[in-house]
């Protein structure tokens, strides 16, 4: 397949450094703006500031899972093994963002709704996404041979992807306690620019940071496998490992 691991090790480090710098600048601007220099909400007051972390984390966990499904699909059809490595590298970033989304959501829910948790369609499907991430890790580790494990994981990711549109439209298809979409919808945004601007900066910052960590993990995994391959070449008797 066109892009292989060697290409990645050559081309990615520079991109990764720039992602790190972008993340730093965006968060240095975004966090004070979000936490202090933006107004409170007329209805929710200061507690709405959790939005600036909760929303980018939610978007991130969904987008990363979608990216994982795409790389797994290409890996499956084109026998592109790097796709499996990308899937695994970004899985950890995705699961952490999912946890951040669930936890910040719960913290936000208590003062606003009056409860940490409800089993409505949005929260339940988001929890399911978290379990899919966990299931991916459990599955890939359960195989003796890493390559087979990653292939099985790819199938799980693709099958589980059906949950993503369910999460997105859960607030429209069913009555939920979670609010409907304020931004990603056909109508005009229901969120005022004074909130939207810091939100976008935070989203850029968290997205860059996520990509930064994902690419570092990817490079590490590729180097590990190359070292292992070299080791096995020199010591064929260790192939039983």
């Amino acid at each position: 397949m066109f892009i292989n691991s060697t290409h990645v090790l050559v081309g990615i480090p520079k991109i990764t450094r720039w992602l790190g710098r972008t993340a730093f600048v965006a968060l240095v601007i975004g966090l004070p703006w979000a936490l202090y220099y933006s107004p409170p909400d007329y209805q929710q007051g200061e507690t709405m500031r959790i939005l600036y972390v909760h929303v980018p984390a939610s978007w991130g966990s969904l987008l990363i899972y979608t990216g994982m499904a795409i790389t797994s699909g290409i890996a499956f059809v084109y026998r592109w093994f790097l796709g499996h490595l990308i899937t695994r590298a970004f899985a950890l970033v995705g699961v952490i963002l999912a946890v951040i989304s669930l936890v910040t959501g719960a913290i936000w829910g208590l003062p606003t709704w009056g409860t940490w948790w409800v089993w409505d369609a949005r929260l339940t499907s988001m929890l399911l996404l978290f379990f899919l991430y966990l299931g991916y890790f459990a599955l890939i580790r359960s195989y003796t041979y890493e390559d087979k494990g990653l292939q099985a994981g790819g199938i799980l990711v693709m099958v589980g992807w059906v949950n993503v549109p369910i999460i997105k439209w859960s607030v429209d298809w069913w009555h939920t306690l979670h609010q409907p979409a304020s931004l990603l919808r056909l109508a005009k945004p229901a969120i005022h620019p004074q909130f939207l601007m810091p939100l976008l900066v935070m989203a850029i910052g968290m997205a860059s940071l996520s990509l930064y960590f994902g690419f570092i993990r990817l490079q590490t995994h590729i180097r590990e496998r190359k070292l292992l391959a070299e080791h096995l070449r020199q010591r064929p008797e260790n192939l039983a490992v």
Partner: protein
Amino acid sequence: MTARQHRLRFLIFVGILFVGGVGLILWSLQENLLYFVTPQALSQQKAGIHLRLGGLVQPGSIQRLGQDLVFVVTDEVATVTVHYVGIVPDLFREGQGVVVEGILKNNIFEATVLLAKHDERYLPPTVVSALKEKGQWRP
């Protein structure tokens, strides 16, 4: 065809079948997946079962008598009177969303849980005051 084309077609075919299957299941479970029923739909539910009711708090309907809270939930088509004793979230106000859990008894909904539901609008207080002054505020 090549092995690759075969894999691609397999993926697409299974994918469509699977998504179709999940869609069918979700569609058939519609009633059961609702987090709450609206006042209009309440009359169609079996009497005496524990369920959740959601809607807007009718302006002017909130009454507090000591520990007891009484108000009316509306979806602009039907109304239900609710009686609740317990902690009330800050966001519970007239004209705002509410979800209550309990049992309908003698046309009064006896609630054991009360949750406030907020809409998707985010506005600074200054903008809200300005709109109210201009008479353009929609609660």
